[in-house]
């Protein structure tokens, strides 16, 4: 049974079904374009990278802390399908999900850009089936 679950990715599909079942939605991962090799202008801040927004779905989005202290940004947790992350890692040419999220500039949720503070994953048999992204809201958006 364990071999079947490992080989077929049943846990990842089960996680996807659960995320969709509890109202999974779409957010956008804002990625900077790769740096230009030997591009001194970018190193000197004379040029800024282009950004592209790529879809991340299904995800479930929740507030990690109910009340933010005044002047402190609220944190939110996003549960992301590992299937979606793996597809992105492959299509964008990154070596691993950790590299993808480390490179990301933020997550765009309903027009609000949130910073990725940390990423963890849940895995079974050494294969992730769910990623947890901890996001920080801009202070101006915190209520």
């Amino acid at each position, binding site marked *: 049974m364990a071999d079947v679950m490992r080989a077929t990715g049943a846990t990842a599909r089960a996680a996807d079904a659960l995320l969709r079942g509890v109202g999974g939605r779409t957010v956008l991962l804002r990625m*900077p*374009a*790769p*740096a*230009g*090799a*030997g*591009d*001194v*202008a*970018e*190193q*000197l*801040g*004379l*040029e800024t*990278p282009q950004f592209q927004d790529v879809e991340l779905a299904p995800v479930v989005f929740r507030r990690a802390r109910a009340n933010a202290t005044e002047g402190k940004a609220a944190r939110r947790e996003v549960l992301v399908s590992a299937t979606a992350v793996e597809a992105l890692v492959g299509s964008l040419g990154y070596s691993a999900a950790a590299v993808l999220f*480390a*490179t*990301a*500039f*933020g997550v765009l949720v309903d027009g609000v850009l949130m*910073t*990725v503070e940390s990423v963890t994953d849940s895995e079974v048999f050494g294969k992730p089936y769910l990623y947890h992204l901890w996001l920080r809201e801009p202070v101006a958006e915190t209520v």
Partner: protein
Amino acid sequence: MQNAKDTFYIALQGRVAALNPARTIAVRGVTRPGLLVEENELASAKEQADVFRLRWTGARLDMQGTLPLAAMTCEIAYATDGNSGNGGMDRGRLLAAMDAELASAVGAAPQNAVKMNYAGLAGESGAAPIAMGTNIFWSDAVFGKTVVNGERLERVATVEVFSYQEVGEL
């Protein structure tokens, strides 16, 4: 002042790359010499160990001379966790190696460089940098205390960078 900051970074980057070509950093998929200016990178960029990070933290302008003399403080922060293969037990040695590299790079003669204007590199034109009429010059590095942050050793060294403000210069 911006030209002086740019010139100092490019000069130091060249010296660090010559001293230790193996000291590199990967920034958005591109490998380059292990030195960056924090204010020129994305705010989301993660702090990386075993590289030099430049921060411009202070500036003074002396108006007494024929040309205003700008003195800027450049903090150079660096840290190391040691090699994971060695269980991090070599972190002290690696920090000492970075101390030595930085001291050599900053202190090697001449401690000056022709001030360059890199503004032409922006945009599609990609014009070559222009040599200006004055030099920048800098002090030796002053090393701060070692800060132990968990398994990581960190240090900040400070260099004073001087340049004359030419007419019409930012």
